[in-house]
């Protein structure tokens, strides 16, 4: 069963190798990179269809790689955003303002970044998953300071330091879980596989697993942007080149959340769902609150989007604690957030390119300057606010329903309150950017319209997910709830 895995994992590696050797300015190298990313995307979709048919493809000694519904969904998301980044990045506004060495560096490490994320979501072995997630930190940190400036150097230093420390703590949690397994069964090579951990979960010792989960949540939560370990996120996501920010905000947070979902399933099987739910609700609410309140005072639009990511991650954490329906809502929200946030970051890259400033106050009259971009930007922002007919409305609504059905009235009231604060501030910032007179010295008229086309695909997908969730998606989500929700 190696073909699907090879077609999924090999293209990004080949793309990285290709970008190293081929001249960056040549259009052929861009075409090769984009084509390989599309191959990866098709492979991910194929894996998803295999899973829907009832297979669980595995590959490698001791089943090193294994794709079930959760892995397939994440792999598809990762491959999609990676394909978008390959198609559109790093230059996004039509004007070439990255030097060829920078373009080459971006292509190589973006491809490696995609590779490590794909390995992380398809690995069956928790240790290999950890290694891949640590590798994502390294691969993405290299290209955060693509243009070296005081701000980007500061952002990249905070990112790699806090990220690596967080991941190290997650490794402590992994070691503790393995330690518990070893005391019961003895050393085994396959002991670090998800399937084995899940099967043996009921006999694991409670205090050890609880301690392990605390470390795991803090560790992977650092990568996911959960407060109070989120301090690196606004800096890194705003200073990175737009295509990288799209990948980081769109899918890296999702991959970290994937790790938390997996471990939550194991811990819930071991000690019951109450303990992980308490922790997730606490941290999720904290993230939601801090992000919502920070949105009000934001002055740069990329930081605004970054804080919105923290807000949505917090919401998804709360959702994970609300039982099977909550897990369904969280996964649906994950798909929607990936689509919407990556699109928004690509668009913000175009805006930055045209206006030359990251400040919200100096961006005005977007509708007049770049009508297509403005339209898509507004659509994306409305999606993030949670308004119909876009997908996020449905997922947020389902989440709230799950909360009220589970008797968590006060919690949902708090969530609604924070969402309302975020709603008002985002709408206000959007209004300021869209309307008004265009500043002097900014060229008017849309350029490079073809680059906007793939982003329109995102909007279409969001609308589809908002009006009718397609049957394959629902089936996939149902399977995920079976695996991960309890």
């Amino acid at each position, binding site marked *: 069963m190696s073909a699907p895995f090879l077609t999924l994992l090999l293209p990004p590696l080949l793309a990285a190798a290709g970008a190293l050797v081929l001249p960056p300015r040549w259009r052929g190298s861009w075409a090769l990179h984009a084509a390989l990313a599309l191959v990866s995307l098709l492979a991910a979709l194929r894996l998803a269809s295999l899973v829907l048919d009832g297979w669980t493809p595995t590959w490698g000694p001791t089943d090193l790689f294994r794709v079930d519904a959760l892995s397939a969904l994440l792999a598809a998301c990762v491959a999609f955003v990676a394909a978008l980044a390959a198609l559109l990045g790093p230059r996004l506004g039509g004007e070439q303002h990255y030097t060829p060495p920078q373009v080459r560096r971006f292509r190589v490490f973006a491809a490696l970044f995609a590779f490590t994320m794909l390995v992380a979501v398809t690995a069956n072995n928790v240790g290999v998953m950890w290694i891949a997630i640590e*590798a994502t930190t390294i691969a993405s940190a290299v290209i955060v300071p693509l243009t070296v400036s005081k701000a980007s*150097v500061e952002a990249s230093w905070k990112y790699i330091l806090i990220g*690596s420390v967080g991941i190290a703590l997650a490794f402590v949690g992994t*070691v503790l879980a*393995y330690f518990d397994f070893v005391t019961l069964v003895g050393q085994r090579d396959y002991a670090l596989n998800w399937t084995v951990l899940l099967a043996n979960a009921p006999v694991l010792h409670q205090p*050890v697993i609880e*301690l392990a989960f605390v470390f795991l949540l803090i560790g992977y939560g650092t990568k996911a942007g959960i407060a109070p370990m989120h301090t690196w996120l606004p*800096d890194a996501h705003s200073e990175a080149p737009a295509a990288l920010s799209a990948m980081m905000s769109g899918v890296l947070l999702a991959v970290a959340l994937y790790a938390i979902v997996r471990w939550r399933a194991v811990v819930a099987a071991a000690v019951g769902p109450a303990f992980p739910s308490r922790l997730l609700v606490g941290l999720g609410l904290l993230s939601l609150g801090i992000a919502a309140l920070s949105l009000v005072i934001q*002055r740069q639009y990329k930081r605004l989007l970054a804080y919105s990511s923290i807000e949505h991650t917090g919401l998804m954490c709360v959702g994970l604690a609300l039982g099977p329906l909550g897990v369904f809502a969280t996964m649906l929200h994950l798909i929607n957030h990936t689509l919407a946030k990556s699109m928004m970051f690509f668009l913000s890259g175009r805006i930055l390119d045209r206006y030359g400033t990251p400040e919200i106050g100096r961006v005005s009259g977007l509708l007049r300057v770049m009508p297509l971009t403005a339209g898509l930007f507004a659509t994306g922002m409305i999606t993030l606010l949670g308004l119909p007919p876009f997908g996020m409305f449905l997922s947020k609504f389902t989440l709230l329903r799950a909360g009220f059905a589970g008797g968590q009235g006060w919690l949902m009231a708090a969530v609604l309150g924070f969402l309302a604060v975020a709603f008002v501030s985002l709408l206000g910032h959007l209004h300021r950017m869209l309307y008004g007179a265009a500043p002097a010295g900014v060229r008017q008229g849309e350029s490079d319209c073809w680059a906007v086309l793939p982003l329109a695909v995102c909007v279409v997908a969001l609308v589809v997910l908002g009006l009718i969730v397609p049957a394959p998606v629902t089936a996939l989500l149902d399977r995920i709830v079976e695996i991960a929700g309890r």
Partner: protein
Amino acid sequence: MSPQLVSQLSVGGSTLVLLAGLMMLWRRGVNAHIGAFTAQSVALAATTAMVGWFTGDWQLWAVAVLLLLVKAVGIPILLKRMARRFGTERELEPYVNTATSLLLGGLLVLLAYVVTGPLVSVSQLPTRTGMPLAMGLVFVSLLVIISRKKALTQVLGFLMLENGIALLAVLGTHGIPIIVEIGVFLDVALGFMVMQVFVYQIHETFESIDVEQLNRLRE
């Protein structure tokens, strides 16, 4: 090798590793820090080899040799090169002064002992007696990363954190599967390389490696 002897050697080895970590809180010069890290890696490799001898697992011997080569020889060489560039910048005024840091370090070791209580009571392995000290090193490394102002010291704190986790793994589980071990090594080595590049970048952009200067991004 009797279990009691293994217990004593585990505690002895872990104490040496933790003491080297506490040296980072006490001494101020970069060369002292690098020396402490080298000594810590050697102690860690020795403890791993001891556990390997006790269990008869040749893979642990391989890991010990790898530890020696990478962390006791390779990384200190790179660190010394960095020290020659930035070594004149000593930790003169960390966020928490030396005496307080040492006392906090002691408290953290006690906290680690409390936290690992359930672990020690659950395990049957004779090496479990050193686990609280390994966890103590994890906490002390976090204190070093938070309270020091020089980027180089923060990198060393991160490397010590990894040492602490490796010690915890070897004492608690007698070695994690070899493929994960190799992967972790590669990750740490690569992470260190990237951090090294970033420290040079910080120095070029800010003319110093003082982390306090990194304060332009607010809110």
